[in-house]
């Protein structure tokens, strides 16, 4: 990367309020390490304790979501063993609200289930989200769900901590690149 391009990259991130950015392999160790530096970063920008807790919670849910949904891929240069990769950014918008965004590859077979989980949340009020959260908490059926380790509570937890509906989009790469899809999520806190 040329230095002037790196400068543009930094400026663009800064203009968009980004205070924290990570791209690469996601593992539980990586999540714990970047979680620690995110906490320090939130302290350094004087986030309120409520914002710190919610941003951290959303970060953990998104990062662990990458662990659950991302297929193990080999990076473009082919070096290293296949791993779960993604990118995640935290920032603060013009209204002083924090946001957490992430993007990661997902398996084609999980796309319809992601739509089913995410779309209804967008229409729900915070009271409905809390009611759905309580209902899911008491729902014992999740044991049969082999995909979701969040016991169906992951997206509801994100929605509960957010002040706006969770935005998402699924981008399909061309057939030529193996019919891959990427999931993007944005939570505003």
């Amino acid at each position, binding site marked *: 990367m040329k230095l002037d391009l790196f400068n543009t990259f930094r400026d663009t991130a800064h203009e968009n309020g980004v205070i924290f950015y990570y791209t690469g392999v996601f593992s539980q160790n990586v999540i714990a390490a970047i*979680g620690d530096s995110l906490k320090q970063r939130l302290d350094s920008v004087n986030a309120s304790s409520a914002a710190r807790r919610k941003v951290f919670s959303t970060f*953990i849910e998104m990062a662990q979501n990458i662990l659950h949904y991302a297929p193990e891929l080999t990076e473009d240069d082919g070096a290293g063993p296949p791993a779960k990769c993604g990118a995640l950014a935290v920032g603060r918008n013009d209204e002083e609200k924090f946001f957490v965004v992430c993007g990661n590859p997902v398996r084609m077979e999980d796309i319809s289930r992601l739509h089913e989980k995410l779309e209804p949340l967008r229409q729900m009020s915070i009271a409905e989200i809390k009611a759905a959260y309580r209902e899911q908490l008491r729902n014992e059926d999740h044991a049969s769900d082999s995909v979701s*380790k969040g*016991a169906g509570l992951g997206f509801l937890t994100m929605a509960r901590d957010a002040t706006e509906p969770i935005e998402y989009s699924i981008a399909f790469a061309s057939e030529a690149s193996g019919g891959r899809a990427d999931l993007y999520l944005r939570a505003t806190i």
Partner: protein
Amino acid sequence: MEDLHIPASNETPEVRFEFSRHCLSMHGESYPENAMSFYGPIRSSLQNYLEKLPADGRVEVNIGLRYFNSSSTKLIRALIGMLDEKASNGPSISVDWLHDEDDDMMLEFGTDLKEEHRSLKFNTVVAEAA
């Protein structure tokens, strides 16, 4: 039976179940990726302890979690459920649920637990600032 002590890690709380003193506590943050592998053994030893607890037994439980992730949530609730079921058969079990003063979400979670588990002496308590 032997006490259970699990020191805190980056993503798991300190667990100190002093069965000999009937004092059980859990403090810290809980966001293991595989919550079942962390809570499974805790659940088994609690189960063993509760099975032997006489009807006139008294137990004090202190839970202070600053944060837990979605996959820990049901498992933490399940521990409270086990205590409640036992308490409905006689033993006096009190649970202090600690939360930071301004942490409404943790207070709300505790209040919901209290509503649902009527056999416990369940108190939500503001945690002392660390």
